[in-house]
């Protein structure tokens, strides 16, 4: 009995997402508050730049002697040019703050000042209701709608109206198809094979791009784009899997949030598309783990039939020798086109 990871492609489900700051801060949102993806739900101060003033060295004094001359205190705000310490004597040298900032700590004849931008904002990322406050860190947001997981994202988040440019799951998007009417849209496309098309989308700009696959050589360009890009199926030249294609194309003209966060295999973060839908009662949440069984719909991670959807017709007992010569637990899968393939269980995810 082998545990199976689940690949979420769901028409309607309850979606619960945790949004937390990386450090302690202030939670702005209230319990039960309705939020949109761009709302700031929490914020923190986190200085990324510091200046260390070695007063002792500057004034040619011992650390203890320098400490006695330092005028500022921990927590104090200082402006550019503010006197931090003055050396002894009538013409004593002065040490001044080189930039606006806040004194973090003094001691050992030194002063550490944090400078530069320090405010960190955490946005909701998805539309929904705040159902839990995590003190000092963030919130849990709940919504109901369609959920489509991807396998790779470029780290951006945005919301827009779903627009389909993929007549087929393997349609190739070209720059010539991107016109001003698509400004602000979240585009469904099959594949994109050149950097110019990605750039053209950025210039419109679009609010997101959902692709089935991308050549690895274009990943660096995709990461540079300021709009979110999600891959639903993988790398190379793979068509979109039929379940995701159907679900996305039947929701065209609805608002969709595209969260192209990077896959975090340890925390469970995964790029995803959320399409909020009106509901009269709370639908069942997605299951995260299943057990392989005959009759299940599965998604194939690797060849044969990588990225395709099929149904388990039989689980083979024990270990099966695959065409590669490796032995593994395997299943017979019937693809949507009727073809039968033999797939190791480790290469499958249950769709649900």
């Amino acid at each position, binding site marked *: 009995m082998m545990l199976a990871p689940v690949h979420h492609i769901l028409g309607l489900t309850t979606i619960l997402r945790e949004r937390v700051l990386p450090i302690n801060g202030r939670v702005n949102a209230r319990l039960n508050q309705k939020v949109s993806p761009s709302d700031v739900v929490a914020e923190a101060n986190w200085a990324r730049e510091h200046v260390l003033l070695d007063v002792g060295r500057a004034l040619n004094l011992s650390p203890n002697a320098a400490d006695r001359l330092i005028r500022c205190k921990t927590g104090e705000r200082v402006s550019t040019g503010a006197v931090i310490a003055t050396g002894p004597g009538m013409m004593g040298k002065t040490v001044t703050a080189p930039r606006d900032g806040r004194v973090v700590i003094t001691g050992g004849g030194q002063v550490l000042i944090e400078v530069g931008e320090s405010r960190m904002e955490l946005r909701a990322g998805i539309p929904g209701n705040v159902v839990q406050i995590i003190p000092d860190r963030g919130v849990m947001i709940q919504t109901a709608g369609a959920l489509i997981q991807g396998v790779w994202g470029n780290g951006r988040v945005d919301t827009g109206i779903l627009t389909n440019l993929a007549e087929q799951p393997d349609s190739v998007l070209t720059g010539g198809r991107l016109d001003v009417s698509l400004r602000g849209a979240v585009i469904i496309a099959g594949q994109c094979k050149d950097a110019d098309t990605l750039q053209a989308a950025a210039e419109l700009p679009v609010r997101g791009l959902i692709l089935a696959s991308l050549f690895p050589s274009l990943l660096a360009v995709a990461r540079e784009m300021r709009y979110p890009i999600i891959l639903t199926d993988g790398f190379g030249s793979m068509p979109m899997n039929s379940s995701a294609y159907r679900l996305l194309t039947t929701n065209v003209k609805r608002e969709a949030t595209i969260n192209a966060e990077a896959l975090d295999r340890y925390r469970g973060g995964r790029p995803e598309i959320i399409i909020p839908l009106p509901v009269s009662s709370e639908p069942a949440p997605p299951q995260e783990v299943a057990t392989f069984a005959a009759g299940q719909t599965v998604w194939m991670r690797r060849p*044969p039939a990588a990225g395709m959807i099929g149904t388990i017709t039989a689980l083979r007992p024990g270990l099966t020798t695959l065409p590669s010569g490796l032995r593994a637990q395997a299943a017979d899968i019937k693809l949507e086109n009727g073809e039968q393939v033999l797939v190791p269980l480790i290469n499958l995810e249950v769709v649900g």
Partner: protein
Amino acid sequence: MPASLVQGDSLLAVNIGAANTRAVLFDVVEGEYRLLASASAPSTVEAPFQDVSAGVCNAINDLQTVTGRTLLNADRRLITPTQLDGSGVDAFVSTLSAGPALKIAVVGLLDDVSLESALRLAEMTYSRVVDSVGLNNHRKADQQIDTLLRLQPDIVIITGGMDGGASRSVHKMLEPVGLASYLLPQEKRPAVLFAGNQKLDDEVKGLLSNVTSSLCFSPNVRPSLETEDLEPAARELANIFLGVRQRQLKGLDVIANWADGSVLPTAYAQDRMVRFLSQIYAGGKGLLSVDIGASAAVVAAGFGQRSTLGVYPQFGLGENLPALLQYATLEDILRWCSLDISSGVLRDYIYQKALYPSSISAGKEEQAIAQAVTRQALYLAVQTARRNFPRSLRAPRPGLLPSFEPILASGGALSDAPTEGQSLLLLLDAIQPTGLTTIILDKNDLLPLLGAAAARNSILPVQVLESGAFLSLGTVVSVVASASYGSLVARARLTYDDGHEAQAEIKYGSLELLPLANNQSAKLTLQPSHGADVGFGPGRSGAVRVSGGAMGVVIDGRGRPLVLPDDPVRRRELIKKWLWTVGG
């Protein structure tokens, strides 16, 4: 759990890898420790499971099915010690390689002394060095602070200052570390290992003990300019590794509890056994152990009292696989491939495999690609590790490996290969050994588990090693010669104990096999041609008693270094021919 395993008998050992978790049961059979059974299950470190202990329990569950022995209770907790009804086990040990590579910042003084030692120390665990600061670093202290804040290393290794030497410079290096740690939130503060001038221990404590997640000390890695001793610091680093992992990986505390706190990094435990074995296998040659898995490639070598250990996540076959392309081109990898594969298909494979590290090759084409990738990754790991081998070791020619005996190999890519011939050929291509050597395949990843068990029971590893739990692939003779393809480089004659003989003429560019089963030995006489070196020196003949194995005696006349033809068609034909020679 008994305090001493002299009274206890059975031992359960679990290795938690990135892709698979393996459980192995040892017990006393006819008065000696034996490997009873082994089972494995997919690891559950990653989402959606996110609980290390689930995969461990699944592997133990499979072991229960194989052995018919109950090891877990109804709550899926380990039963210890062995009960009257025969359920349970007396002791438990574990090794771990799963988890993201630790981010390590190293701080030292001189680039080619303490800092270099710190970098070598960092290379002894599953890590990537994210920042390196020495005296020659041009960044100001506040820039160093900002870098550490941005990178948020898991561990900071500080070295520098010979024992009894100057301390002011080291003090200066400590300040940015202390201030950055002070500024970080509590849960993100790094662990610090101080392995420098021991006179500074108190000062380091004063500066850092309140601002780090843990502060550890070890003897100086460079007590003098000429002396480097990494082992004590490596031991501390192994402890720190476990501490960091327990914070990162849910369920590991359960496993650590079962193991009485001793879960070892897999590579560290492997190195422990290599050091032990290299003292047993005397005879002037070092002992080499290689492991290639999803987390990393590991190369451990023992040379009597000394050992070297290199852990290379950048050469792992899992989530880090795209990093291989920083060290090798697609063409470098494709040259190992027996099929005509385009570079685009190879690149797609690398990225798709990195998404799903535990996934496997279902078809022939993917398997050919996987083996080519494994060859290149292991080749690079061995070449990188070679830098740290003692300079006194002599290789037949510059640039070649010194001769090792034996060579131990492990990792799913090797143990799960469709045939033993494919495993052997992969090892010969990647390692390119020289001279005479025995190649042993550790199909059950026992070596690190024995290394972990050794601390609890020093008899068990010895008896298990002697019991045939490892698979000998055979004796390999690697001919070093300058010759043209097809010319005769050596003659070999194998004389069996019953007087029969098997002979072979080894042409340059070929592989020849002489049958010699496991548990058999015979006399091998080698006669080189034209100055070739068959392990006795250039142009020298010799005879030696050799052991058999799954592939018998293999004479590799393909040359060292192994140079493949530039013409891709010819190259693929040659690779297919070699594959056919070793059984396909």
